[in-house]
């Protein structure tokens, strides 16, 4: 309280405190900024303002004189300021380019109904569509080409497929290891095992991807004898390597924070060490283990380089031995070739926004669960 009083007397102190306070808001600010700036680039897609149709309504340049200025401005999609700054020749040129865009289209596509479709509309993004050339409705992500097929379902399936394989592999192992290290191992073993496992998180994901691509893919193919060398299975197991340290340290932390008295009580009643761990400690720490899985999920679905290096075909298939293209991979691989501000570019930002939202929720859930658990355990002990 004495410090409180000192504030008025010491302006410098007061100022420093304000500065510290302002800077400490940076974390909140950054989260907001990420929301705003990733969202801003994706907004036209969310609002359905983008038009990716191959054939746009085109007015021949000869008819330029028939249009009144306002019509011309809207047709060329210019802001009033841009419009005012352009001379007649430039406007004429813009109209010619529009015409050329129409002429670039191969004649057989002119009558294709797909060429008139705005493929960034939500129904194309989420539901299967029977494109010309195909015998039945399909989910297709094919952003390159005359007709941009932007169905995001294969990417979501790809992300979930690799993530789930990773979790199925990583969760039992890391939770088992967490139980062993926190409950059953001798202190010496624990002191060595824990930092060693955490060292796994020090391996950059690009190195894990490299290892999966060069070594694991060949070994697995020799063992399992499947067709596709690079597939979701290899990517999933490699993702598991990245998830193990996350799940392990959170689960281990949750198990360790269960008060010793629980175990001691169980042992005193004649149970063995593993019975105490399995029947007493694990159930008490279960929400923490759940949170570990949720946070591991967030880590896996957001991982880019591993999946990018191991597989990248946007196949709509749940088979684990098929290739898969995850959301993150798509963003990383396609951004360089996308025209800034174009629909492909905005579509990738939209995917980023979706990914951000998913991991945000996962993190929030994981955080809340851990928080509750800790409070409960501390309150009881």
């Amino acid at each position: 309280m004495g410090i409180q009083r000192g504030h008025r007397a010491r302006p410098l102190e007061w100022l420093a405190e304000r500065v510290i306070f302002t800077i400490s808001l940076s974390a909140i600010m950054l989260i907001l900024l990420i929301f705003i700036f990733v969202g801003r680039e994706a907004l036209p897609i969310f609002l359905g303002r983008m038009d990716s149709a191959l054939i746009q309504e085109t007015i021949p340049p000869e008819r330029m004189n028939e249009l009144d200025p306002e019509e011309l401005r809207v047709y060329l999609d210019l802001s009033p300021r841009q419009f005012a700054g352009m001379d007649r020749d430039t406007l004429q040129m813009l109209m010619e380019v529009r015409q050329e865009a129409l002429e670039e289209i191969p004649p057989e596509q002119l009558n294709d109904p797909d060429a008139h479709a705005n493929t960034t509309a939500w129904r194309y993004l989420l539901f299967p569509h029977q494109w010309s050339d195909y015998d039945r409705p399909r989910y297709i992500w094919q952003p390159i080409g005359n007709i941009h097929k932007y169905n995001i379902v294969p990417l979501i399936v790809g992300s979930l497929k690799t993530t789930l394989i990773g979790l199925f592999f990583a969760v039992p192992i890391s939770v088992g290891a967490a139980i062993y290290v926190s409950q059953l191992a001798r202190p010496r073993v624990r002191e060595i095992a824990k930092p060693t496992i955490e060292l796994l998180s020090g391996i950059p994901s690009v190195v894990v991807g490299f290892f999966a691509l060069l070594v694991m893919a060949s070994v697995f193919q020799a063992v399992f004898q499947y067709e596709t060398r690079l597939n979701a299975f290899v990517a999933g197991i490699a993702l598991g390597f990245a998830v193990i340290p996350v799940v392990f340290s959170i689960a281990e932390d949750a198990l360790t924070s269960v008060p010793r008295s629980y175990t001691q009580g169980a042992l005193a009643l004649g149970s063995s060490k593993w019975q105490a761990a399995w029947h007493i400690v694990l159930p008490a720490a279960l929400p923490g283990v759940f949170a570990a899985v949720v946070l591991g999920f967030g880590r896996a679905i957001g991982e880019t380089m591993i999946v990018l290096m191991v597989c990248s075909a946007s196949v709509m298939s749940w088979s684990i031995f098929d290739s898969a293209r995850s959301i993150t991979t798509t963003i990383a691989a396609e951004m360089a070739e996308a025209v800034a501000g174009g629909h492909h570019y905005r579509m990738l930002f939209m995917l980023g926004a979706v990914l951000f939202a998913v991991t945000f929720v996962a993190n929030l859930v994981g955080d809340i669960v851990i928080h509750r658990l800790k409070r409960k355990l501390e309150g009881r002990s």
Partner: protein
Amino acid sequence: MNRPPNPAPPDSAKSFRSERFDFASFFFTGLTGFATLLIVAILAVILLNIVVQGWESLSWRFISTIPKDNFFDPASTGVLPMIVGTTGRVFVMTIFVLPVGVITAIYLTEYAPSTSPLTRFIRAAVNNLAGVPSIVFGLFGLGFFINFVGRNLDALLDSPGPTWGQPAILWASLTLAVMTLPVVIVATEESLRAIPPGLREASLALGATKLQTILRVVLPQALPGIMTGGILAVSRAAGEVAPILFTGVAYYMANLPSKLTDQFMDLGYHVYVLSTQSPNIEQTRPILYATVLVLLMLTFALNFTAILIRARMRKKLRALG
């Protein structure tokens, strides 16, 4: 817990167990022990594979050479520009992330009322920031730093061509700084909390102001912890590729970057390029392994330093407490 050991229960337990072999216990311990072993084995296999194969083709020439035109050619390639690029971007990042992270941690531990909703909000934001996928940071860097800040800077300074509004070391470093902020905050907070409150109280009792106490008493004590945070952030950032893909990394550059608005080559990205774009994978395999080894040595050296500093700090604190 400090009760004298009571010999009775363990004895009875032992005799109970030795009567018949407890299969369930053996099975369960074995299974979880195996899981632990499996993880350690995975780590060992990865590291051994890389170290054994990478060591053969690692040479001083390889580390100190700037590759001319064809970096897939094992005879003439090198990784000097990548080492410079990775070190450079990480260094610039540290300059930004350390002050902001440390000040935020100071606010959270020294000033903020721990139960206020605002504090809880900041903490939640920090935790959440830690879980945002790295590729989203890349998008953020592109959308915010390059397309918004950079473009506007160009317009404002009236630069002759685009100077700021394009991928550069500066933007890649800032993106990474945003990404590693939670690491620094958490590590600093941890070390600030480990300082016995008695020290602060003594300083305040002697008439020092709160700011003086923090600057002269608390911070010097917390320095090892802050350094650990910084090193952990650096080692995390050194291996990250996704956030720099659109914010600054170059496929190939003939010269070393010389200013903050240059692009740069990067070790991690180079690993990606070598393993996917090589015209002849068998021929590039040795240099690929060597590049991976260099990257691993860099990140592990940093990780180890962090672990050592932390261990020393813990010992010192234990002696104090």
